[in-house]
C-alpha cells in the first residue's frame, strides 16, 4: 500500500507560468475593456458584444484541455475581487471627472458625439477645483483626522490599563474578561451607538443621576457635541484597541519585570523603561485599528454629533444622499482615498514587511 518513498518523494511544485501570466493578462485586459466599454455609445457596445462573446467562448473551448485546475482556482476569487472591488474605483475616478446633470444616472457621459460625428471627451477637474477651493471640504478632512486622533489617544489611555490588567490576571478570570471585551462586538454596532443617545441626552441617564446626586443643577449638554462623538468612537472601537495590546502584553516575560525590580527600579520606572517600549508593536497595531475606521466614520457623527461636527464620511454621505451630486461625492471619495487611505495602507504594508523580517 505504501508507495516507495524513493520514487514518489515530495512532489515537485508545478509551475504554470505562461498560463498564470495569461490569466493576469486576461484579467487586466477584461478590466481595461470594461472601462473602455463604459465609454462607448450603446449601439457600438451591443455590436462589439456580439463579436467578443462568441470569440471568447471559442477561445475558452479550444484552450480548455490544456488549462490546469490551478488556473481556474486562481481565476475565481481574482475575478470576483477584480470586478467588485478594483473596477469600482475606476468607475469612481471616471465619474469624479464628469459633470452633474439632471438625468438618470445624474452625471454626464464620458463621450459625446457632436453633429459632425466627432467624439468629444467630457472630463474635467472642475469637481476637484471645487472641493479644494471650498473651505468646508478642507475643514471636514482636517477635522476627521483631528477627531480620529483624539479618539485614538483616549482609547489608548483607557484600553492600555484594561489590556494590562487582563494580561496579568490568572487564567480562568483572564478568559472570561477577554470574552467580555469581545462580546459587545457581536451585538449590533448601530444599537450600541444608539444606547449612548439614552445616556447623553438632556433628560438622559447621566444627567438624571448627576442631578439626583446633586452634583449639577442644570442638565449638561452632551448630545450633539464633539464630546459625544469622541465617546461614541472610543466606545465602539475600544475592543480593537484592547485585543492587540493584550496579545502583546500577555507575551511579556515576567523575568524582565523581576530583574528590573531586583535592580532597584520602582514600578513606574519599570513600566516606562521595560513594559512600554516592549509593547510598542501592540500600541501601534491597536491605534491603527481605531484610527483608520474612525476617519471615515459616518454613523457616530450622524447620531451623536451636532450639525457642526464635520467629518469627511458624513460630508460624502450628505453630498450623495442630500445634494444628490454624484460627481462631487466621487471627487470627495477620491481625495479621501489619496489623503487618508493611501498613507495608512502604506504604513500598514511597511509594518507588515517589518513583521515578516522579524
Amino acid at each position: 500500500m505504501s508507495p516507495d518513498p524513493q520514487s514518489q518523494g515530495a512532489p515537485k511544485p508545478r509551475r504554470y507560468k505562461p498560463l498564470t501570466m495569461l490569466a493576469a493578462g486576461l484579467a487586466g485586459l477584461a478590466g481595461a475593456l470594461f472601462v473602455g466599454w463604459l465609454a462607448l455609445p450603446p449601439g457600438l457596445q451591443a455590436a462589439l458584444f456580439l463579436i467578443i462573446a462568441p470569440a471568447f467562448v471559442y477561445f475558452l473551448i479550444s484552450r480548455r484541455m490544456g488549462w490546469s485546475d490551478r488556473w481556474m482556482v486562481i481565476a475565481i476569487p481574482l475575478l470576483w475581487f477584480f470586478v467588485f472591488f478594483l473596477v469600482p474605483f475606476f468607475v469612481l475616478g471616471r465619474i469624479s471627472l464628469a459633470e452633474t446633470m439632471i438625468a438618470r444616472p445624474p452625471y454626464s457621459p464620458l463621450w459625446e458625439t457632436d453633429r459632425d460625428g466627432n467624439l468629444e471627451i467630457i472630463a474635467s477637474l472642475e469637481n476637484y477645483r471645487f472641493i479644494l477651493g471650498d473651505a468646508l471640504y478642507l475643514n471636514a478632512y482636517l477635522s476627521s483626522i483631528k477627531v480620529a486622533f483624539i479618539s485614538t489617544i483616549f482609547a489608548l489611555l483607557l484600553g492600555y490599563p484594561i489590556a494590562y490588567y487582563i494580561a496579568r490576571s490568572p487564567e480562568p478570570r483572564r478568559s472570561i474578561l477577554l470574552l467580555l471585551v469581545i462580546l459587545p462586538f457581536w451585538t449590533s454596532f448601530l444599537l450600541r451607538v444608539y444606547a449612548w443617545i439614552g445616556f447623553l441626552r438632556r433628560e438622559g441617564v447621566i444627567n438624571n443621576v448627576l442631578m439626583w446626586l446633586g452634583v449639577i443643577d442644570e442638565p449638561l449638554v452632551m448630545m450633539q457635541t464633539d464630546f459625544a462623538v469622541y465617546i461614541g468612537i472610543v466606545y465602539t472601537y475600544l475592543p480593537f484597541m484592547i485585543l492587540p495590546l493584550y496579545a502583546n502584553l500577555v507575551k511579556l516575560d515576567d523575568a524582565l519585570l523581576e530583574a528590573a525590580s531586583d535592580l532597584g527600579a520602582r514600578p513606574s520606572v519599570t513600566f516606562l523603561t521595560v513594559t512600554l517600549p516592549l509593547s510598542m508593536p501592540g500600541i501601534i497595531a491597536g491605534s491603527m485599528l481605531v484610527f483608520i475606521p474612525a476617519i471615515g466614520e459616518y454613523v457616530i457623527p450622524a447620531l451623536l454629533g451636532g450639525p457642526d461636527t464635520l467629518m469627511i464620511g458624513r460630508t460624502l454621505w450628505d453630498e450623495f444622499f442630500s445634494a444628490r451630486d454624484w460627481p462631487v461625492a466621487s471627487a470627495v471619495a477620491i481625495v479621501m482615498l489619496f489623503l487618508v487611505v493611501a498613507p495608512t495602507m502604506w504604513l500598514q504594508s511597511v509594518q507588515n514587511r517589518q513583521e515578516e523580517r522579524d
Partner: protein
Amino acid sequence: MKRGWFLPIVATLGFAFLYAPIVSLVIFSFNESRLVTVWGGFSTRWYGELLDDGQMLGAAWISLKVGAWAASIATVMGTLAAFVLTRFGKFRGKLLMTGMITAPLVMPEVIIGLSLLLLFVAMEGVLGWPAGRGMLTVIIAHATFTAAYVAVIAQSRLRDMDESLEEAARDLGAGPVRVFFDITLPVIAPALVSGWLLAFTLSLDDLVIASFVSGPGASTLPMVIFSKVRLGVSPDVNALATIIIGIVALAVTVAGVLLMRQSKRMR
C-alpha cells in the same frame, strides 16, 4: 509583582463603560413609559408593538437572507483566495490579489458603498445587469467586503496547519481536488465556521454600504433602525436591541459549552 489599586479600578471602570449602555438599553426596554429614560413601571408593551411592526419584521427577514447569502459567498471566495495565496507559491497577480483582499479591511465604508453603487449603475447601463438595485446588489456588496475578513481567518489557519498531511495524501496518489476536499477542508472547517459567522454578523450590522447599494423594497434592518433612531429614541428599538443581545448571549453560551466539552474530550 505586587498589584496596586490603579489597574483593578481602571479595568472596572472600563468594563462599566462597555456594559452600562447595553444594560440600560435592556432595562428601559421593559419600561411602560414612552419616555425612554423615565421609569414608568414594568411592561412588555414594546415587545408587542415590535411584533406588530410589519416593516421592522420584513427588514429583519431581508437582513437575515442577505446575511446568509453574503456570508456563504464570502466564505467560498475568501477561502479560495486564502488557499491560493498560501498554497500556490508565487504566481502572477499574487500581489494584486493580496492587495485586493487586505484593502477592504482598511477602506472606509462610505467609499466602498459609493464606488460599488456607481459600478452597479454603470453595469446596469451597459449590460442591463443587475437590473435596478435591491437585495442582489446588497448581497454582492456584503459578500465582497466580508470575504476579506474570511480570507484573513482562513489564511492564518492554512498557515498554521500541518502541511505534511496534504503531502502524505498527495504521495498516496490523491489529486489536488481530492486533497483539498478530503484533507484541507476538514482541517480548516472550524476556522471557516467562525469566518462565516463573522461575515454574517458584519453583514447584519452594516448600515453604510447597504444604504448606498440597496434599492426600494430592500431596506435592511439597520437601515430601518437608523431611520427610526435618527428621529430620537424609541422604546421598540430598545426591545429589538434586547432580543438581539439575548440571541447573542445565548449563542455565545452554547458555543462556550460546546467548546469546553470538545476540549474535555480531546484531553
